[in-house]
C-alpha cells in the first residue's frame, strides 16, 4: 500500500534529479579519520563509495564507528582527517546546497512530545525550499490514522516511521538512516523496509547502518563491513557470502572439547581437511565449519569425531549469512 502511494506522489523526483546532472557517486570518502577529544579513535582510515540509486549498508558491531562515520557524512561532525564528497560537493563549501538535498534520520531522535504527526512534518517541511507534499508523505509512511496524534502517544514503530518521514519530507536525493529499525517489532520493521524500498525505486540513494543481517540482505545492494573504524570488506551481500567459499554453516558442540587452545586449533584444522569442508574454526565454545557440500561433509565430520572418541552434544546447520561473514572476518559475533 505504501508503495502505491509513493508511486502516485513522486515529488520533484526523477525528472528534476536528472536535470541536476547528479553525479554517479552519491558518497565518496577516502581515508576518513575521527579522533575524539578524549583520544578515542572512532574512525581510522575508512574508505567508502555509495553509487547513485543504490542502498548501501554499513555493517558492524556497536562501537565499530558506524554512527561517527554517518554523522561525518551528514555534515554534523568534523572529521579529523580524510576527504568527504557528498553528491559531488563538499560540506565546507556547499552546506546549504547539500542540506536541501539530503534526508537524515539520526540513531535516536526524540521529536517534540506535544506536536502531532502532521505538525511535526509541517515543521520539517518548512525548512526546505522544495519538498514533498505533507499528505503524500503521511501516506508513504502509513501514518494516516495517526495524523493528529501527538508524538508521545505513538508506538516505537510509528515514532520511527515519523522520524523517517521527517527525513523524506524535503524530497532528498540521498537518505541517511542510522539504525532505523533497532528495537522494533518484525511488522514495524517490514513497514519501514517498504518505505526505504519505495524511496529507492524513485531513484534515491540510501546509506543505512544496521546490525541486523536480514535487514542488510533485504534492503542493501551493497554492504560495507566495518570494524574498529575501518572497512574490512565491501560487496553485494551475495558476494560477501560467496567469499566464505561455502554456502552452508555447520556448528558442532562436543561434550568435552580439548581444554588447550592448541589442541582445539589442531582439531579444527583436521576438520577443515575433510571432504566438502571449506574452513573450520573454534569459536564461542563450538566448532564452526563452512561447508560447500553438506551431504559429503556431514558423514565425514561425524566419522572423524567418532574416531577421536568425542561425544557429540549438539549439531546444527544453516545457510551462510552476513553474520557468518562478519564472524569469519573479525572472529567476533556482531552483537557481542
Amino acid at each position: 500500500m505504501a508503495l502505491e502511494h509513493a508511486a502516485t506522489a513522486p515529488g520533484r523526483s526523477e525528472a528534476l534529479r536528472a536535470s541536476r546532472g547528479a553525479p554517479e557517486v552519491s558518497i565518496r570518502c577516502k581515508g576518513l579519520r575521527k579522533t575524539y577529544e578524549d583520544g578515542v579513535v572512532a574512525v581510522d582510515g575508512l574508505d567508502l563509495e555509495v553509487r547513485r540509486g543504490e542502498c548501501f549498508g554499513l555493517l558492524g558491531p556497536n562501537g565499530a564507528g558506524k554512527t561517527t562515520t554517518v554523522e561525518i557524512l551528514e555534515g554534523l561532525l568534523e572529521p579529523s582527517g580524510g576527504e568527504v564528497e557528498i553528491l559531488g560537493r563538499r560540506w565546507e563549501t556547499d552546506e546549504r546546497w547539500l542540506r536541501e538535498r539530503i534526508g537524515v534520520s539520526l540513531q535516536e531522535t526524540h521529536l517534540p512530545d506535544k506536536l502531532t504527526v502532521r505538525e511535526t512534518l509541517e515543521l520539517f517541511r518548512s525548512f526546505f525550499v522544495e519538498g514533498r507534499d505533507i499528505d503524500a508523505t503521511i501516506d508513504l509512511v502509513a501514518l494516516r490514522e495517526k495524523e493528529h496524534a501527538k508524538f508521545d502517544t505513538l508506538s516505537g514503530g510509528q515514532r520511527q516511521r515519523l522520524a523517517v518521514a521527517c527525513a523524506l519530507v524535503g524530497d532528498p536525493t540521498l537518505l541517511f538512516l542510522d539504525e532505523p529499525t533497532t528495537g522494533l517489532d518484525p511488522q514495524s520493521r517490514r513497514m519501514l523496509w517498504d518505505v526505504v524500498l519505495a524511496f529507492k525505486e524513485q531513484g534515491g540513494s540510501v546509506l543505512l547502518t544496521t546490525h541486523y543481517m536480514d535487514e542488510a540482505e533485504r534492503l542493501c545492494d551493497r554492504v560495507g563491513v566495518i570494524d574498529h573504524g575501518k572497512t574490512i570488506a565491501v560487496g553485494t551481500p551475495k558476494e560477501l557470502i560467496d567469499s566464505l567459499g561455502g554456502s552452508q554453516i555447520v556448528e558442532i558442540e562436543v561434550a568435552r572439547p580439548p581444554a588447550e587452545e592448541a589442541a582445539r586449533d589442531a582439531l579444527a584444522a583436521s576438520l577443515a581437511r575433510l571432504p566438502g569442508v571449506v574452513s573450520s574454526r573454534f569459536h564461542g565454545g563450538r566448532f564452526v565449519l563452512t561447508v560447500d557440500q553438506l551431504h559429503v561433509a556431514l558423514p565425514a565430520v561425524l566419522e572423524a569425531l567418532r574416531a577421536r572418541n568425542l561425544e557429540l552434544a549438539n549439531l546444527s546447520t544453516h545457510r551462510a549469512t552476513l553474520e557468518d561473514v562478519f564472524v569469519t572476518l573479525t572472529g567476533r559475533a556482531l552483537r557481542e
Partner: protein
Amino acid sequence: MSDVERRARMRAIVQLALARFRIFYREPGSMFWTFGFPLVLSIVLGIAFRDRDPEPVVVAVEVAAEDARARAEHAREILARSDDVKVKVMSPEEASAALRTGKVSLVVTPSTDGYAYRWDPTRPESRLARSVTDDVLQRGEGRQDAYEPTSSIVTEPGSRYIDFLVPGLVGLGLMSTGLWGIGFALAEMRTKKLIKRLVATPMRRSDFLLSFLLVRALLLPVELAPLLAFAWLVFDVGVRGSFLTLGITALVGALTFAVMGLFFACRADNPHVVSGLINIVSFPMYLCSGVFFSSSRFPDAVQPIIGLLPLTALNDALRATMIDGAGLADVAGKLGVCATWGIVCFVLAIRLFKWR
C-alpha cells in the same frame, strides 16, 4: 535571496514559532508557572499585607488594694470613652503577666496624686500606648488643650504594600518565564538530540533562535494582562504611566531574560545543569532586586552592585512607570542597564551555542 527562498524562510519562522506555541500551551505545567503562579502569589501576599484600620492600644488598669478600686474604676471609665484605647481592670499579678506576654502594652496604676505607668520603651506599641493613654487620662482629669488642631487625612495612592508588590511580581514573572521557559526548553531539546536533528535540515540557525524571542514577545501581553487586570480589579492597583511605556519596559525585560535563558542553555547537555545555573543566578535577584521588599534595605556598600542587576533595573523601571507615572525618557537609563545584559548574553550565546 530569491522570492521563493524568502517565502520559504518566512514559512520556516512561522512554523518554528507555531511549534513553540503548541509545545507551550499543551504543557499544563508551563501554563501554570506563567499565568497561575503570579496570580496566586499576588492573592496570598495581597491578603497578608492588606491595609488595616489603626488598632486601639490595649492597656490594663491594676487594682493594687481594695481601697484603690474606686480610683481604678474611674480611670477605666475615662479610658473606655476613647476609641483609641481598649482597657481592662486586672489584679497586679494578672497585669504583670499580661504586660510580659504582650497582651497589654501598658499598665496604669492609680497613685496618690495621679497615675503611674508601667511599660517597656523598647516596644513601639508600648510607646504608642504610653502617649495615647497619658493624653486621654490627662484630658479626662481636666487638662485644657492649648489649641484645637486641624488635620487633613491623606491616603497616597501607590503607597500601599500591594502597590509595591505588583510591579515586583511582574518583573519576577518576566525573569522566570524567560530563564526557565527558554533555558529549560533548549536544554531538553539538546538532550533529546532535537537540536542536532534540526541542524541536519537546511533550517537557518538564526531563525531557530529568533523563534524563541518572537514567541516570548508575542506571549508577553497574554501573560501580563491577567495579572494587571486582577491587581486592578481586586486590589485597585492601577498603572499611572502610559501603557506604551509599560509595554516597552516589559518587552525589554522579557527579551533580556529570554536571551539570558538562551545563554545559560547554550552549551548545557542536560536540563539539570541549566536549572542549577538558573537557580544560582536568579536566587540572589529574588532577594536583592526588590521583588518583595525594597532593595534599598541592603547596605550602601552593595547598592551599586544591586543596582546593576538586570532584575533590579527592570523592577525600578516598572515601579517608576506603574506607581510614579514615569515616561519612557525617565526609565531609559534603567532599560539601558537591562538591555546591556541582554546584548552581552546574546553575543555570548551566539558565539558559544552548541549546535551538534
